[in-house]
């Protein structure tokens, strides 16, 4: 009887019809470019971008010999770790605030979205001028408050560039993180709080023993997505760091761009190799993070 088989085939075909557009999209904008990236990383290109042949893993070997790599990798660790930790901490407080009822809450919630809605390049340019030594408003404001005694060249002084960039990174990461955590807070049922109150738990105790554990899924999502976003963030570092020579304040992402187009290396193949390494790194980082978190969960 061919009947049932035909039906099943028709179902498969129908499923494919429904899935088709998204499969095409994923194939076209994710898989194909990824394959091309790997292919490019195994090839040699001239300064002009002309393909010059297959070189196997030589680009990867050369990448490891780049003097700047250690500095850039360290910058990236600091950049990602500090932004994610600080963002999550501030967002916890913000989400708590936004979860309370107070007059004007809707306005505050809307206002929080603004840094998220604005284009990253615009925000970064804005901060370039805020930080500027001669034209910026940050120095006058700080000096009128009495700190510091001398104006600071925030984006030119080697000791302050990274901090200045991280501050912007935190600023633009806050809205998303706060909303994820706020959504998490709102899924916590009111009766567990009531139970805690009946048991006579203090506010801090309630927060630690009730809110935080129940917020864990939201915290996980916020942390993982932020790690990925922040690691891959290009516009902030690129815009705020564009006046600085060398690779002293680059992260893996801007370093990759500089290798391809801006430094004397001008090497698309080498940059592609770094691109592949970046993807691998972020995957490993996320897996390690998730493992660590689950392991603790099991222990508790």
């Amino acid at each position: 009887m061919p009947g049932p088989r035909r039906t099943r085939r028709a179902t498969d075909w129908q499923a494919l019809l429904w899935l088709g557009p998204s499969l095409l999209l994923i194939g076209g904008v994710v898989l194909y470019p990824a394959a091309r990236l790997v292919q490019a990383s195994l090839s040699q290109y001239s300064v002009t971008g002309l393909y010059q042949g297959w070189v196997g893993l030589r680009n990867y070997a050369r990448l490891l010999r780049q003097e700047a790599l250690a500095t850039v990798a360290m910058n990236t660790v600091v950049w990602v770790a500090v932004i994610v930790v600080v963002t999550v901490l501030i967002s916890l407080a913000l989400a708590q605030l936004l979860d309370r009822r107070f007059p004007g809450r809707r306005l505050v919630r809307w206002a929080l979205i603004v840094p998220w809605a604005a284009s990253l390049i615009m925000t970064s340019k804005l901060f370039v001028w805020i930080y500027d030594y001669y034209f910026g408003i940050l120095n006058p404001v700080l000096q009128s408050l009495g700190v510091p005694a001398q104006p600071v060249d925030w984006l030119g002084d080697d000791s302050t560039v990274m901090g200045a960039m991280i501050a912007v990174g935190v600023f633009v990461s806050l809205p998303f993180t706060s909303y994820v955590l706020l959504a998490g807070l709102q899924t916590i049922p009111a009766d567990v709080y009531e139970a805690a109150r009946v048991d006579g738990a203090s506010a801090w105790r309630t927060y630690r023993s009730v809110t935080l554990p129940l917020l864990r899924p939201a915290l996980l999502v916020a942390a993982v997505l932020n790690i990925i976003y922040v690691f891959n963030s290009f516009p902030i570092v690129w815009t705020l760091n564009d006046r600085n020579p060398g690779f002293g304040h680059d992260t893996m992402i801007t370093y990759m761009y500089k290798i391809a187009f801006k430094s004397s290396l001008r090497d698309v193949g080498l940059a592609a190799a770094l691109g592949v390494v970046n993807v691998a790194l972020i995957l490993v980082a996320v897996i390690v993070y998730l493992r660590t978190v689950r392991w603790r969960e099991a222990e508790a």
Partner: protein
Amino acid sequence: MRRVMPVLLLSVVISFLAIACDRGPSAKSGGVASIKVVIADYSKDNTRPFWQALSAAYTKQTGVKVDLQVIDWNSIDQQVTTMIQNNQPPDVLNLNSFSSYAKDGLLNSSEDVLSPKTRDDFLAAFARGGEYQGKLYGFPILSSARAFFYNKSLFAKAKIAAPPKTWDEFVKTAQKITALGKGTIGYALPLGPEEAQAEWSIWMWNNGGDWKSGDQWAINSEKNLQTLKFLADLANTHKVTQVNPGKTNRTDGAFQLFKDGKVGMVMGFSPLAKQLDAEGKVDYGTKFLDLYYQPENITRWITAEGFLPVTKSGLDQMRSNPKLKPYLDALPNARLVPTTDPAWDKVKLDVQQNIGLAVQPGGNPKQVLDQLQKNATTAGGR
């Protein structure tokens, strides 16, 4: 140490109009429905309208459609690289380098694509800058003269009678201006990555140094070391520059400060003069205007952008203007960066990214120059 200060024209930076040959020289002889033209954006107001009009005229004349792309300087290298990587090279490309493209066999020489009349019209100095292995591949389209700009009001306030003529006078002048206080800056020195090779060239040539000596790179010569030390001293010993000159770009840094009236002296170029004139805020010395190439046609654009001509006929046409005479007389003797060496395309980026490190506090000019020299030599070898 009596050295002549740059008071007028010092260097000329030219841009090339190169022809990519992948689709073959038959582009002109029919069979091609459209050509891809990629042009660098010199200014928002003038570049696109000019090339659009020219494209329309070309289409009308030949029936060949023009796919015109105007791309800003910050991303043009990236976009052109991507086009070539994907085997979709432009047919006509406007860029500030050409020799590595010629080396890769991507360009047509002038013999194939230019009439002898046009070819012979180029000023010899510029044509030489477009040659690779004896053939002309890079066709100059406009030139821009760097000049010394000074703020007349600040000079008057500091009781300085005339612009400095030697490096010693230069330091003293800068010190007097800095001494005015209120954040006044003697000399704005942009050695950040944007355009460091241009600022460096001016000072290097002014001291009698050069990029190459004969066929060899000579970036770390005694003369150049002396120059870079002098620049580092301006920043760190005399403290007459803006803060962190190795980390200041030209457009949003040095020029911005000069336009704001905070700076006594700066190495500017003709488009800066246009902006200053438009704003009318700063009373500055060394004014100059503009112009160009195939007599009527392109002169309009060059005039609008504020650049200078690259052809003999363009030069002749502009000579009647007495204001421009000093610049034009100097043009045939213009000095060019070594664009004809394919290694230059890497050396330029290396200098942009790294020379600023030398003038930072604690920077080491000798080490920076030695490294640049080493990289240039290796780049040439590859």
